[in-house]
């Protein structure tokens, strides 16, 4: 995975070089891209709602799953992945020789700069001022671009329906005491709080237990521009299904292309008009000469 990352980076640099040649289009684009990343955040990031999941503390009791089902009125079902009726799921990872074992809680990561919200053509998905990424079903047209765009494979569909809606964790945003799953966890493996505080707690745990946590770092502090669900793990993040993202927010990769849209609109339009005038004169001259 690391190899792919570096090659992607170098490709972006290549693009910047080409872009400079194209009259600084890219400079304008990346400036606007940063503006986009900075906007749309209500509360300062450390103040926003967040969850910290410490896989080394999780006993796999699945109380969190049940609490989620109860609170969201979801039917019990036996599934191996998140589904239209399962917004969170505990899975057990075991290495082949059985020496390494870890649970992992799957759910929406409530990205700081969510790819799902950037992709949705009708803004049905959006990030609330205080952090949760939520869904307005009444806007959704069902294009499923959000499912395609999310790097964590979170948005789900009820495929048995003819007119389904997107289904995913919304961090119990309308619940005053925060997510139901965190409230019930008996092991403090899942705690709810402000993102800044949780990061501090996570780093403290790392500092107190050197060597216990994978790479001595918190997953989600920077990955894909950061997430509001932070994860500590004793086994490699990839092993428990966390994708190796670099630090660039995913929507940024699209933003440059969108930023040059007005340039294309007026540029192509203008060039076409100029060619029209030039060739018309030529065509007339030829007609007169003939």
């Amino acid at each position, binding site marked *: 995975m690391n190899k*792919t990352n570096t*090659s*992607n980076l*170098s*490709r972006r640099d*290549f*693009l910047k070089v080409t872009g400079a040649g194209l009259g600084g289009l890219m400079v304008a684009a990346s400036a606007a891209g940063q503006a*986009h990343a900075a906007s749309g955040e209500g509360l300062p990031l450390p103040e926003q709602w967040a969850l910290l999941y410490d896989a080394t503390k999780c006993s796999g009791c699945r109380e969190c799953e049940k609490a989620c089902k109860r609170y969201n009125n979801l039917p019990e079902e036996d599934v191996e992945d*998140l*589904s239209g009726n399962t917004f969170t799921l505990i899975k057990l990872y075991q290495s082949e020789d059985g020496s390494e074992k870890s649970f992992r809680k799957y759910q929406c990561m409530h990205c700081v700069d969510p790819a799902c919200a*950037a*992709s*949705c*053509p*009708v*803004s*049905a998905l959006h990030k609330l001022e205080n952090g949760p990424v939520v869904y307005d079903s009444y*806007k*959704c*047209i*069902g*294009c*499923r*671009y959000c*499912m*395609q*765009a999310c*790097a964590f*494979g979170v948005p*789900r*569909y009820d*495929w*048995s329906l*003819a*007119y*389904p*809606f997107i289904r995913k964790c919304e961090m119990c945003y309308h619940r005053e005491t925060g997510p139901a799953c965190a409230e019930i966890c008996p092991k403090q493996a899942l705690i709810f709080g402000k993102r800044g505080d949780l990061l501090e707690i996570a780093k403290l745990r790392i500092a107190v237990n050197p060597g216990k946590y994978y790479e001595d770092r918190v997953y989600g502090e920077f990955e894909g521009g950061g997430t509001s669900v932070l994860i500590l793990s004793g086994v490699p993040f990839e092993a428990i299904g966390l*994708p190796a*993202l670099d630090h660039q927010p*995913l*929507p940024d*990769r*699209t*933003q*440059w*292309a*969108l930023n040059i*849209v007005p340039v*294309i*609109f007026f540029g*192509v*339009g203008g060039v*076409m*008009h100029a*060619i*029209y005038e030039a*060739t*018309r004169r*030529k*065509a007339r001259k030829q007609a007169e000469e003939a």
Partner: protein
Amino acid sequence: MASITFPIIKKKVSIGAVILMALAALGVFAAFFRWIDGFSQVSNLSDSRPWGLWISFDLLVGVPISAGAFILAATVHIFHIEKYKPILRPALLTGFLGYLLVIIALLVDLGQPQRIWHMLIYRNLHSPLFEVGMCVMTYTAVLFLEFSPPVLEKLGWTGLLQAVKKISIPVVILGVTLSTMHQSSLGSLFLIVPFKMHPLWYTPLLPLLFLVSAIAVGFGMVIFECTLSHQVMGGEVRKDIFQGLAKGMLATLSVLLAVKLGDLIYAGELGLLLDGSLQSKLFILENLVGIILPIAILLVPKLRRSVRWIFRAGMLTLIGLILYRLNIGLVSMAGAPYLPSWMELSVTVGLFSAGILVFGLALKHLPLEEGECAHGD
């Protein structure tokens, strides 16, 4: 051609047309089931394959094969190269039909098709899909305007015809602009999935590759249409037109090859070509068939002058584009194994059959060949 006589309407219909009608009817049937019965009963789509054949073929192929319309409209009305005038109307018609098919396909694919107009009120300027949607809708209207003169002529509505002709140049320019925008932003759709897409296909240059490959296949489709309408209508083959189109296609394909190759070399990914995986083989196939072979054919001066070889090169370019877009939509993306269900296939095949039928009917009944096309001066 063999034909069947229908006693009720007392008309002869060719076997080919009967087959196309049957396929179109099957497509309508399958689409109907999708709308009343749910996705899992009809399709093989799933949470890890949210986009299947309908997006990868109907949208990602349907849009570029309609690119001939904007290329020829620009050539004739903006560059004033009059030689291509006789083939402009058929190209505009295929373009218009193509976009109609894309919109119908989207109505099948969308989970809430009745809300397609929501894009107009809940705009998200950060979404490339929003841009694609808006451009496709607007450009379909533009194509309708561009193509309307022969219909208005036939109806004898001269007043309206004059009005349409008056605004024709701005409309043509708008069409070229919108096409540049959405042909490329179809590629931008995939910029956001760098970690899901195979590195052979993922590149920040996707929008450029989508635009250039659309222009190449635009030429290829015009070559195909000319051959087809020539066979339906008879008449003389305009060799100079074919050769001009071949030149355009050769130039575009060369640019495409250079960009693709340069990008792979720059990213240091050439090695991936030889890793023996299914993906690398399909990638090689797509480029061999759709870019390298047609370039090789058209580089031979003798073949470049032959209408038959130009047609073959055009067909290869078309096949190559279909492979490219299917690879992007289905092969390059990580996810569960997926093959379209027969119902999904029926919708796609049915839509394109209906398109060919309508094109054939229009060739016979509309003044596509003679007369002035929409032209302001």
